[in-house]
């Protein structure tokens, strides 16, 4: 396959660059997209915004050929198309720039660029790569679109912003006229964000259409020509920046109704069980993962942290659990400085955790249930007896968990991976709660859990709270956060940007803080 000759894109027609109508995509048990309609004008920047789980990523996968829609049509440049693979999408001119770059560190920019699409020498030397032609084209593209890169640099040596330029050039090299950028500013520092936006403007002026997926409303408002909001798997609105404010957008994203928390007696005491002060995790070349975070959790309190995934929640949990080293800051448990304690010591002293990825961090999938019960508690009763594992104790406790937490399983010898996600989650919650911790870190405790089990888990968390448990609740489910939290914090780009009262928080307030739209504005 020879490299396409570089020619300017054709003059804009009345057709949309990309048009989606009535797209539906189902997975077993879930409808990821339904009734999606999208019309992207050529040579514009069209933003697609929505929360996690709203269906953005599935939609993008459909657009660039990784998934096929169950219903609906896709039109590119006015013609209906059907993609069987990303190669088809690229041939139709649609190129994807992933959030997690697909670049091989040990290869040069040139090699990454031409991989799978290599230009060849003429005639008898057809089996050799035509490096000169490749280099020329890369430099030419770089000059035309204002994305200069050094073809011979090793990707490993490039900074994040440069790598993104390479990724963009990679799809342009293959003749893409429509670019999809997935959360492109997620890992950029402010200066790199500015450079990116300048590049996007340049691309636009050269006729390239850009689809910009994000949850950061202030950025979107500054760079997009059109904004489409996705909520709950469907496109709910399309606006232009001049006719809408960030808060209004946030409200559309989040939905105009928030659940009202039930009135109850507050069980919050005055004793601070866990305190975090000035927690900072620096990353070379990137924005800090955590930036001077401080919070307090009291006995009998649930502190909820709202935020779009990827804004520091994982690192915060890791820091409190002792799995991630911190650059600066202090963690105190019941007044004692535990910043340098090992994970095991923290667990032994009363910190329990429900991990956000239960299969990766919370279970031994091929081990039986009663052995999974020991996980995280292997140094304490009833699981341990000196250096020995107390099988009877562990099994008895496991049976107790199964009964009290409604874990549907025939026996306690079944291996953990056989349980459904909901039952696995109930099991983990039971395991942690029955160990009677003083602090609980609950990350997405009802993710992937059916409605019935969810209500059950919430009840358990509430019961534990009234018995004095101090809980840190991290979730993307606003209903959960509002319903359970006594105090509601919002995390954005590694910082706590707001503290709200769950009973009185409005959707637009919450949404705008979560998406950075509340930055700098008076509140």
């Amino acid at each position, binding site marked *: 396959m020879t490299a396409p000759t570089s020619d300017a894109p054709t003059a804009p027609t009345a057709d949309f660059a990309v048009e989606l109508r009535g797209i539906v995509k189902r*997975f*077993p*048990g*879930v409808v*990821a997209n339904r009734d999606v309609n999208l019309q992207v004008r050529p040579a514009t920047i069209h933003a697609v915004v929505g929360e*996690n*789980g*709203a269906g953005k*990523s*599935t939609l993008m996968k459909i657009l660039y050929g990784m998934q096929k829609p169950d219903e609906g049509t896709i039109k590119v440049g006015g013609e209906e198309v059907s993609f069987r693979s990303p190669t088809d999408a690229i041939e139709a001119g649609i190129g994807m720039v992933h959030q997690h770059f697909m670049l091989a560190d040990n290869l040069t920019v040139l090699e990454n660029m031409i991989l799978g699409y290599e230009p060849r020498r003429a005639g008898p030397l057809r089996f050799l790569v035509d490096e000169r032609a490749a280099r020329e084209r890369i430099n030419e593209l770089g000059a035309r679109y204002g994305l200069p890169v050094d073809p011979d640099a090793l990707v490993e040596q490039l900074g994040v912003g440069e790598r993104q330029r390479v990724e963009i050039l990679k799809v342009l090299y293959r003749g893409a006229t429509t670019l999809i950028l997935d959360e492109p500013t997620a890992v950029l520092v402010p200066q790199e964000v500015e450079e990116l936006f300048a590049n996007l403007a340049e691309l636009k002026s050269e006729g390239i259409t850009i689809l910009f997926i994000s949850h950061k409303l202030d950025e979107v408002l500054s760079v997009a020509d059109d904004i489409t909001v996705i*909520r*709950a*798997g469907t496109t*709910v609105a399309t606006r232009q920046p001049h006719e809408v404010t960030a808060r209004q957008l946030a409200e559309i994203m989040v*939905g105009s109704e928030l659940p009202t928390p039930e009135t109850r007696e507050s069980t919050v005491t005055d004793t601070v069980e866990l305190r975090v002060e000035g927690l900072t995790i620096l990353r070379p070349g990137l924005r800090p993962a955590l930036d001077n975070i401080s919070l307090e959790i009291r006995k009998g309190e649930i502190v909820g942290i709202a935020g779009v995934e990827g804004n520091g929640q994982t690192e915060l949990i890791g820091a409190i659990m002792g*799995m991630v080293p911190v650059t600066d800051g202090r963690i105190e448990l019941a007044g004692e400085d535990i910043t340098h304690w*090992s*994970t*095991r*010591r*923290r*667990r*032994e002293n009363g910190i329990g*955790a429900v991990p956000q990825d239960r299969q*990766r961090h*919370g*279970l*031994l*999938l091929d*081990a039986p249930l009663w*052995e999974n019960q*020991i*996980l*995280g*508690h*292997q*140094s304490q009763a009833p699981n341990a007896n000196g250096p*020995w*594992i107390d*099988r009877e104790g562990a099994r008895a406790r496991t049976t107790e968990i199964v009964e009290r937490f409604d874990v*549907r*399983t*025939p026996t306690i010898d*079944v291996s953990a*991976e*056989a*349980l*459904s*996600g*909901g*039952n696995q989650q109930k099991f983990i919650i039971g395991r942690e709660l029955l160990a009677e911790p003083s602090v609980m870190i609950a990350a997405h405790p009802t*993710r*992937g*859990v*059916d*409605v*019935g*089990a969810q209500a059950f888990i919430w009840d358990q968390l509430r019961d534990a709270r009234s018995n004095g448990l101090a809980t840190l609740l991290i979730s*993307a489910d606003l*209903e959960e956060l509002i319903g359970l939290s006594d105090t509601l914090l919002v995390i954005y780009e590694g910082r706590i940007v707001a503290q709200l009262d769950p009973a009185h928080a409005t959707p637009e307030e919450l949404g705008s803080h979560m998406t950075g739209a509340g930055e700098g504005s008076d509140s």
Partner: protein
Amino acid sequence: MKRLILQFAAPGLAIGFALLVSALMLSITEYSAAEVFNVIVTEGFSKVYLIETVNRAAPYYISGVAVAVGFKMNLFNIGVEGQYKLAALFAAAAAGAVSLPAPIHVVFTLLVAMVVGAAWASIPAILKATRGVSEVISSIMLNAIALGVGSFLLGRWLRAPASVSPVVGTPSTDPSARLPTLNGLLNSIGLNIPDANRVQSYILVAAVVGVIYHILIWRTRFGYDLRATGSNPEAAGASGVNAKRMIVTAMLLSGGFAGLIGLSNIMGQAGRYTDVSVVSGLGFTGIAIALLGRNHPVGIAFAALLWAFMDAVQTPLSNAALPKQITAIMQGITVLSVVIAYEVVRRVGSRQEASGLRRDTTEGGEPPPIDGTSPKVVPA
């Protein structure tokens, strides 16, 4: 119950496949597969060769356990080969150099062997931890270097004076360092074992090793941590396990067990270390046996006996002028097919278990989502 069948499926399939291929290979030669199998079955199960099997199985078992300790942690102790040779040399030399009352002498010998084995195993572990050296390559190099170091030490310093023994070897140990045979015991319970066929009591040492292995890995907190790290290092880390320390400890343990592999003859009739009294190749055999036995103390026992049997029958085959190496081929193919069979069986088994369970425990809700997105469609 189903699980048990699945466990046996893989080795069963593998052995069956190996038999098939062996029969095929024999068919292209002038030898008859039927004749070969006939000899294997009739002679192999005679008293003489059964004893041979049992004797060979003991070091195989220990080797399998040594490797299995590493496997449980997802570590490869390929260095077992060098560890056991050096350990045997040092233990024989040490045993020959002292005079102690019987039980202490035996224990002393075993301890020296374990310490040397663990020490030699620590080298790749330390190199990996400090300099990032591939433990596979360094272990393989150290296996060879152990041979050189061993023969150097034996030739220069550890050998019995040539006047006493023309064969190069360590000084003979006192009887107090030897383990008695089991012939007397077995004869007293009615099995008539001719004196010429010695049943080494090293099989008891192997049994003890097996018991220790079982208790250590399945009954102690340390063992739990080890298995958890092997199964899911991230979850183990989240549960408080110190991964680096685990790796070093596991390697040392594996090396310690490895040290015991080569002592059966030294503590038996030979009474000393010579080129003949310690067999080569047991390190790689251990890998095969651990794989076959799925790192399970009883499974490894079966595997060790099977392997030893296939070795032992080489003699009657050779006596019958049949190609004895056919068993070596069977061994090789068995290993390869068993690992493939495990992969296949594992995937089939877990898929079945999961879907079966999901059918049985209907919650009326949705199964977990594909990519972490919330399954609930929030009402607009």
